[in-house]
């Protein structure tokens, strides 16, 4: 307990360490939240499910919070459904037939136009298809006739594909602009107020039913926006955290601890064992890590665990073996090691309870500083298109953004958000790592 208190007192002297620890803590909370709020299977479904998962999201929408800084407020997506209470549904008998009138009302207070509008119909009938006709009523009372159509069981009406409606609207405007603009104002400006879409459906059979759903796609979406296939980027932003942290921590821990053990074994037994370890290390040092990983990814498997295993396997015999060995060789000659030998401690015991504890002060900062290296490595592989094919990760977001020309098209959020998270992760671990280095190795303090 006291040791902990002392440790925190030490670390409190380094504001950067506190900031770093706060960052790491937040990242961990973020990762835990991701895993708890979106379980793995759900995350995979949200990321790879298909149109019916993300069909209601706008395409390439910026995050909603960009409105806070924008002069022109962008609309958010509004979904109106016949099951909602705000939607009025009248049913009247017309001769043998039933007429259903659905009033979708929409309070529109934005300066910009929606991205797209679609009405999705679901209908039930045996022989004769229901017939719908739709009207657009603006806040200033103008009424616009839209198309009339016979409904299949599952049908949709896309406003911007309605050519006849287009022709009824002012020149040089898209359908959406035409519907939401004030008449005769140049440049086009939105008319704020309550709009109504009135759908009247004629049902020719007693058991017939019609349900409609109006989706007014906004220009902004959620906390992180969406990509070119309408996927919510937040899924990948959230799930990128646990994946990056797990990969970084496991790789850093695995490589550092294993290299340390190998170095200790080599230094303690010396002779042939040490020679073999040193030669393997020297050969391994000249093997390029990234190309080998690219080869594994291209030819064998891109599963993150395979890549993790390959990273650890290739990084065990790294330069840290040399560093640790140099320290071990020095410690090994200490009188207390000879004393331990003299009272019959076995080699295993000497390595694990005499040699290795002495190197912890060097190991821990190295381990913490090593985490971002592996986080970045995983992201780099993803950016190169060698990310895990299933998992949503930060690196994959950047890869998607790059392949869709996000920066060229002005979708900065798509690249910047995962990049900022990656940088913050690196920053947090580095700040803590460097402070730990100074605490554990006081001789560095003057440097």
């Amino acid at each position, binding site marked *: 307990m006291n040791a902990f208190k002392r440790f925190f007192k030490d670390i409190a002297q380094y504001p950067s360490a506190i900031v770093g620890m706060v960052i790491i803590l937040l990242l961990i909370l973020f990762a835990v939240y991701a895993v708890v709020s979106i379980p793995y299977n759900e995350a995979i479904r949200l990321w790879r499910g298909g149109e019916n998962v993300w069909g209601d999201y706008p395409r390439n929408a910026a995050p909603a919070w960009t409105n806070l800084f924008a002069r022109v407020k962008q609309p958010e997506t509004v979904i109106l459904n016949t099951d909602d209470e705000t939607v009025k549904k009248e049913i009247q008998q017309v001769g043998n037939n039933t007429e259903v009138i659905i009033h979708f009302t929409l309070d529109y207070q934005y300066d910009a136009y929606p991205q797209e509008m679609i009405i999705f119909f679901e209908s039930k009938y045996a022989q004769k298809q229901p017939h719908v006709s739709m009207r657009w009523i603006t806040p200033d009372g103008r009424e616009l006739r839209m198309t009339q159509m016979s409904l299949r069981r599952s049908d949709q009406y896309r406003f911007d594909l309605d050519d006849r409606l287009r022709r009824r609207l002012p020149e040089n405007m898209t359908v959406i602009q035409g519907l939401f603009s004030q008449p005769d104002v140049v440049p086009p400006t939105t008319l704020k107020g309550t709009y109504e879409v009135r759908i009247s459906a004629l049902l020719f059979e007693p058991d017939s039913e019609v349900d409609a759903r109006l989706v007014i796609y906004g220009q902004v979406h959620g906390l992180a926006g969406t990509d070119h296939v309408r996927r919510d980027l937040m899924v990948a932003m959230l799930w990128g955290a646990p994946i990056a942290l797990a990969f970084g921590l496991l790789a850093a821990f695995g490589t550092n601890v294993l290299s340390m053990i190998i170095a200790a074994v080599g230094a303690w037994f010396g002779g042939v064992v040490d020679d073999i370890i040193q030669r393997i290390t020297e050969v391994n040092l000249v093997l390029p890590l990234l190309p080998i990983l690219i080869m594994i990814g291209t030819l064998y498997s891109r599963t993150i665990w395979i890549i993790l295993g390959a990273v650890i396997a290739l990084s065990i015999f790294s330069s840290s073996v040399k560093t640790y060995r140099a320290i071990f060789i020095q410690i090994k000659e*200490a*009188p*207390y090691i*000879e*004393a331990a030998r*003299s009272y*019959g401690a076995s080699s295993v015991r000497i390595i694990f309870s005499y040699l290795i504890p*002495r190197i912890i002060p060097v190991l821990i900062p190295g381990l913490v500083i090593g985490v971002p290296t592996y986080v970045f490595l995983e992201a780099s592989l993803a950016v190169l298109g060698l990310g895990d094919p299933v998992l949503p990760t930060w690196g994959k977001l950047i890869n998607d953004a790059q392949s869709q020309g996000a920066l060229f098209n002005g979708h900065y959020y798509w690249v910047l958000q995962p990049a900022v998270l990656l940088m913050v992760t690196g920053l947090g671990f580095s700040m803590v790592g460097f402070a730990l280095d100074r605490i554990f190795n006081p001789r560095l303090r003057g440097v």
Partner: protein
Amino acid sequence: MHDQKTLLRIEDLKLYFRATRGVVQAVDGVNLTLNPNEAMVIIGESGCGKSSMAKALLRLLPRNVQTYSGKVFLNGSELMGMTDEEYRQQIRWLKISMVPQAAMNSLNPVLRVGDQVAEPMIVHHGARKEEALLQASNMFQRVGVPVDFLSRYAFELSGGMRQRAAIAMALVTAPDLVILDEPTSALDVLTQANIMNLLKRIKKEIATSFILITHDIATSSELADRVGVMYAGQMVELSDAHRFFTAPLHPYSQKLMASVPKLRSTSEPEYITGQPPSLINPPTGCRFAARCHVRFAKCDQEPPMVQHPDGRQVKCWLYHSNGKE
């Protein structure tokens, strides 16, 4: 076959090291016997093979060993035939323990002293940690370290305390033989006296044998039952303590005794001219001959270990029946 009373018998123990300039004959044919509950002091100059002999006994050999031979009997059983692993498990610390040279630095800096002292119990008896710690605290009381020091680290202890802790660690498994390699060097005189008194008390209380390696002749005289003098890797005199300290036989021993400073005495401490011979190419004949004040022609031949009538042994032609002729 063996004298039941003998605890340790060393016959022709040799330990040679490989060095760049040749083979260092650090221990060259040492013979020695030790009885139970007996303290033998091994004295000699620096570099005469005292510590190497201790290491040879405990088989703590460096990598560059060239020759390691001879016979060591402990309680009648031969030790040199054992494999390293057998030796480690059966002998080290169970039968023979050691307070290493610079014992102050021989404590693991990352273990609490109590855990450290308990280590041999855990290593050898597979004791549970609590039992071992209990044993350690008993041993701490015996050597006069406050029990609450158990949970401290080595750097929090004074030199004398660390020395006591090291001694406690050597005694914790109740071995037959404890080798103390310069246990009082680097301590102040009062602490030296303290440690010596402690060793005397322990010897009385727990009937252990000691081999005390030192060049501090004055302090070691407190504890010694017998004295062995080593010179250039060889044992040149083996004697009981009383007769040795009053009248040593070997010329080297005489010079050594004369070099001990005496308080408020008019006589200046003497020293021996020259240096001990190189152990890489030791001279043929008597190794002390070059520095000897009573050398004569015969000294060109290697002297045998002469059995003196009163039971002492000395490796010098002076005492040989046909030595001076």
